């Protein structure tokens, strides 16, 4: 309530004051205060992109490993599965004594959460490469490496990109709790004035917008790099 009163003192336009006092959705308050959200928004974007990028790199390495040595796939799935089910809030608090408050703790937890989604989709993508395509590739003299980079990976792209989209949107959501680890983000802005509707709308809305924008971005990239998936028989 004290924060609200402070806002009241700062703005003296009566209509806005009424709106804020009534805890409404206040366009003029939003217009005046939107700048405050810029920095948490960027931090949120940063946490999401960095976490998913690191998660992607780790999951990709694990997927290549499991693709070569099949017996590794079940244990990797189980371990990443455990990481996935751990409540991220619990992970934040478990990590705090080790890594302290800040980005590192938040990113570690978010990465751990994204691994299962990314890894499983990559494996799914490899599994969907037609056996005869692989056989023909080997039979024409592609080496293991060439088969992987020129045939298997491109054909696994739709599933890999689908995993990336899920990972990005869920990480945007989870990053709203990153402030508990002292890493800020839109969650901090949101919980700072959780009772004030205009604030909840803006902070929540920006998080939603970020999730949708990232999702569409990846979808666009996927369409651009997998033109064959849209080729239909004529």
């Amino acid at each position, binding site marked *: 309530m004290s924060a609200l009163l402070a806002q009241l003192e700062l703005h003296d336009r009566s209509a806005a004051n009424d709106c804020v006092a009534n805890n409404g959705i206040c366009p003029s308050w939003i217009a005046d205060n939107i700048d405050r959200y810029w920095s948490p928004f960027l931090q949120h974007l940063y946490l999401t992109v960095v976490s998913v990028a690191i998660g992607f790199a780790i999951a990709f390495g694990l997927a290549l490993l499991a693709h070569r040595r099949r017996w590794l796939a079940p244990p990797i799935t189980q371990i990443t599965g455990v990481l996935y089910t751990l409540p991220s809030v619990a992970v934040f608090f478990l990590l705090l004594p080790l890594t302290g408050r800040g980005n590192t703790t938040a990113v570690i937890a978010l990465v751990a959460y994204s691994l299962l989604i990314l890894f499983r989709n990559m494996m799914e993508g490899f599994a969907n490469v037609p056996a*005869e*395509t692989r056989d023909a590739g080997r*039979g024409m003299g592609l080496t293991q490496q*060439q088969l992987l980079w020129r045939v298997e990976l491109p*054909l696994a792209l739709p599933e890999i990109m689908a995993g990336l989209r899920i990972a990005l949107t869920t990480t945007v959501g989870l990053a709203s709790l990153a402030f508990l680890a002292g890493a800020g983000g839109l969650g901090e802005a949101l919980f700072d004035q959780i009772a004030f509707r205009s604030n909840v709308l803006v902070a929540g809305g920006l998080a939603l917008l970020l999730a949708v924008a990232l999702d569409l971005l990846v979808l666009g990239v996927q369409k651009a790099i997998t033109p*064959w998936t849209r080729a239909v028989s004529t």
Partner: protein
Amino acid sequence: MSTANTAQSEGPSASRQAASLEFREATKRYTGSDRPAVDRLSLEVPAGEICVLVGPSGCGKTTAMRMVNRMIEITDGDILVGGKSVRQSDETELRRHVGYVIQQVGLFPHRNVADNIATVPQLLGWDKRRTAARVDELMDLIGLEREMAGRYPAQLSGGQRQRVGVARALAADPPVMLMDEPFGAIDPINRERLQNEFLRLQAEIRKTVVFVTHDIDEAIKMGDRIAVMQEGGRLAQYAPPAELLMSPANAFVEDFVGADRALKRLALQRVRDVDLIAATDGHPSEPAIDIDEPLRDALSEMLGAQVSVAPVVENGRVVGLLSIERVSQAIGRDT
């Protein structure tokens, strides 16, 4: 088919000599199995001929074929391509010089027709211009319009896909081709068309081909020589089609070629191969039979017209008479 195009660039026709192929006691044993999958297979395929491996499923014909490019490793014995042991060849290098066509084709779904055909030339590091010229040439050779080059495999019919598969296997002009039931997944009408197209193509390119099928009729049609394989990966008989039909080596082969082997032999012979009866005055004028017709078709026409003697024409002129008796003599005669 553009012969002009063929002449100026490195053409498909005999630009590289086909190589002979020899199985020498080639054997495949899998651990944990008491019987070998392929048992001391020995046979020679002269350069430029089609050798068909035929037999029931589980007879080891596909295994035998896949040992040639070491998709399956040989346990014992050897296979020589152009006199060179495949066991001593680098596996990847070997495969790039042996054309490979499989039943499910296995085109790369993410690459268009031109890029699929260009696979091996790209692996061999051909420059762009040479590769593009070769792709154009092969598109002509398999009778696919140039505007199809940008299509993805999903946009092609089954027959077109199989043609592209053959073109892709031929791209780097390999001296040897392996074809595993290449037309097995195609409907009967298109299969017949593809078979004929391939035989026409083969007359031009003269590759040494190992062709696997379970269909004895396809084997007889496509093969210069046929290797009939039986359970346990053993070679039952290796002979040209006519000989196989004329004198099956054992009961298995006799049974496998079928009770209608006499009729199958008829399909292999032409009216021209028969001693015709001299034409006499007042001979029947119907049904006129062309001298280059397969004997099987001629017999069918005669039976259909319910005659025992029919005139044979060459260039519109009657050159003799064919009788059912002469047809039956032709089947019985040694070739």
